[in-house]
C-alpha cells in the first residue's frame, strides 16, 4: 500500500451496532462531541461533505429519524435526496433492487435505509458501492438510535459529575443499571440498545410482558428478565421505555392496552419509585398514557427531547466517519486515527 492510500476498513456501512464493538461506539461518541459543538455555533454547518450525495430511502413512516438524518447531512454540506417508497416507482411495481440501483447510478455516496423487512439495508449494501446506514429495519436493529441514547446517557452523567465531555470516555457505562421496559419483541430499538449497552458494560434488565418477549434471547447481553416493574425501578439508573408497536400487531399479544398500561406503564406513582437521579428515556414517538404517563414525560428527569437533539450530532458523526474527507475513516476501526505519514502533511 503506497503512502497516501487510505486503508480499507471493514466499517464501510453501519448495519448493526454489534459491528462497532465498544471501541467503535466510543469513537462515534467522541466524534459526536465535536458535532454537538458545531450545533451550538452561529452557523451550525461545516463543509466536510461538500459534493457528497446522501439519499434517504424510507419505506416506512418516520418523522424524527428521517428529518434528523437529513439535517445531519445538510449540516455537513452534503446534498440530500429524499425518497419515499409510496411516492416512487416502487408503487408501480419496480423491485427494491432495481430502484436502488437506478438511484445509485445517479451517483450516490450514502444510502440511509429504513425498511419494514429485517436485513433490507444489508441487502442494499450488497447491491451498491455506496455506504449504507441502517435507519431501522423491521424488528432487527436501529443502530443510530442506540448510539444517540448512549450519547445522551454519557452526556447527562458527565454533566452531573462536573466533567468535561471530551474527557469522559465510556467508563460511565460500567455497571450502569438500565431497565428496558415494554415491547421488546417488536422493537429494533431494544435490540440495538441492549447490544450497545452490553458491549459498554452496563447491566441491563428487561421488564417485559411474557407475550412480548422475543422468541429467544440468545446473544442478548441481558442480566435479568422480570415482569415486575415496581421492584425493578427501585434499582434503576436509567429507565428506558419502549413504544408499544401496535402497527406491528403488539396489541394482539396483550389482553388490552389498559392492562399493559397497568402493569408496565410508567405512571406518576411508579416514577416516584425511581432513585432521585434516575433518567427516563423514550425513543419516540411516545404513546402518552400508554407506556409513559403524560406528566412523567414532561418531568425534568425525562431526557426525551435531549435524545432528539443529540440525534443530529450523532448522525453527523456517523455520516462523517463513513464519508468524510479521504473517503471516510470508517466506523469501528481503532486505526482510524492512524494516518499515513504523508509527505507534505502540514506540520501543525
Amino acid at each position: 500500500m503506497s503512502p497516501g492510500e487510505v486503508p480499507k476498513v471493514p466499517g464501510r456501512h453501519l448495519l448493526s451496532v454489534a459491528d462497532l464493538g465498544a471501541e467503535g461506539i466510543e469513537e462515534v461518541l467522541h466524534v459526536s462531541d465535536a458535532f454537538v459543538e458545531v450545533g451550538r455555533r452561529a452557523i451550525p454547518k461545516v463543509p466536510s461533505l461538500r459534493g457528497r450525495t446522501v439519499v434517504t430511502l424510507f419505506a416506512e413512516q418516520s418523522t424524527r429519524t428521517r428529518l434528523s438524518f437529513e439535517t445531519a447531512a445538510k449540516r455537513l454540506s452534503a446534498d440530500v435526496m429524499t425518497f419515499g417508497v409510496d411516492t416512487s416507482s416502487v408503487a408501480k411495481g419496480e423491485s427494491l433492487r432495481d430502484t436502488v440501483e437506478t438511484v445509485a447510478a445517479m451517483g450516490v455516496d450514502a444510502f440511509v435505509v429504513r425498511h419494514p423487512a429485517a436485513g433490507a439495508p444489508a441487502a442494499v449494501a450488497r447491491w451498491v458501492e455506496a455506504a449504507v446506514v441502517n435507519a431501522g429495519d423491521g424488528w432487527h436493529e436501529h443502530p443510530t438510535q442506540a448510539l444517540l441514547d448512549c450519547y445522551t446517557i454519557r452526556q447527562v452523567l458527565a454533566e452531573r459529575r462536573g466533567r468535561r465531555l471530551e474527557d469522559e470516555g465510556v467508563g460511565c457505562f460500567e455497571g450502569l443499571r438500565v431497565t428496558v421496559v415494554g415491547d421488546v419483541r417488536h422493537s429494533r430499538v431494544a435490540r440495538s440498545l441492549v447490544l450497545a449497552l452490553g458491549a459498554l458494560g452496563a447491566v441491563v434488565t428487561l421488564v417485559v410482558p411474557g407475550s412480548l418477549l422475543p422468541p429467544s434471547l440468545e446473544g442478548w447481553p441481558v442480566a435479568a428478565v422480570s415482569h415486575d416493574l415496581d421492584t425493578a425501578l427501585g434499582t434503576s439508573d436509567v429507565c428506558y421505555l419502549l413504544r408499544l408497536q401496535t402497527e406491528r400487531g403488539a396489541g394482539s399479544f396483550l389482553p388490552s392496552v389498559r392492562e399493559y398500561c397497568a402493569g408496565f406503564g410508567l405512571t406518576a406513582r411508579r416514577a416516584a419509585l425511581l432513585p432521585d437521579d434516575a433518567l427516563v428515556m423514550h425513543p419516540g414517538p411516545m404513546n402518552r398514557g400508554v407506556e409513559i404517563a403524560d406528566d412523567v414525560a414532561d418531568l425534568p428527569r425525562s431526557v426525551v427531547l435531549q435524545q432528539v437533539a443529540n440525534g443530529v450530532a450523532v448522525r453527523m458523526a456517523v455520516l462523517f466517519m463513513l464519508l468524510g474527507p479521504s473517503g471516510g475513516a470508517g466506523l469501528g476501526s481503532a486505526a482510524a486515527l492512524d494516518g499515513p505519514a504523508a509527505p507534505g502533511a502540514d506540520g501543525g
Partner: protein
Amino acid sequence: MAERERRLTPPRGGVFVPRVQVLTAQDVQRALTRIAHEIVERNRGLDDVVLVGLQTGGVPLAFRIAAVLQEVEGVSVPVGLLDVAFYRDDIGIRPVLPEAATDIPGDLAGRLVVLVDDVLFTGRTVRAALNALADYGRARAVQLAVMVDRGHRELPIRPDYVGKNMPTRIDEQVDVSLDGVVLGDVVPR
C-alpha cells in the same frame, strides 16, 4: 492528537528520531514573551483581541502568550480552542477525525483574532482555520502567530509573529513543545 503524533502513530507512522535541539525551554519562553509584546505593539493595546490556539500544538502556546499579556498589560485576553478537522482539504491523503475540543468564546464579529500554532509548514491548517473562524462571525482582522516557520508553503499564507524562522528539508520533522523545539527525522518502524 497533533499532526506530529498522527504521523508517528502505528501501524503506518514512523518513529521520531531527534537530531538537533534548536530552541530550549527558555528560548521558547523568550520567544513567546516577545510575540506577546509584538501583539500589543502592533495592535496598540489589546482591545478586542482574542487568542485562538489551534488544536493541539497551538493551545499551550496560546495560553502561555495570554499569561504573558496578563503580566505585562494586566489584561485578561480570552483564549479559544479550535480543531479544524471538518475544514481540512487533504482528501484521499489520510483519515481525518477531530482530535480535541473546539471552544470559541462568544461571537467573533468585530474582534481581532490572533491564531496561534506551533509550526507553520504548508499553510493548509491555517487555511482550514480561516474557514472555520468565518463560521463564528466576521472578525475585524485575523493575525497569525507561530513558534516555528519551517517554509515549504503551498498556499499564499504568511505569519505575523514568528518565534523562529527555521529552513528545513521537506522530509524532516519539527517537534514543538513548551520544553523546546527539536529538529529530527521520521524513520519507518
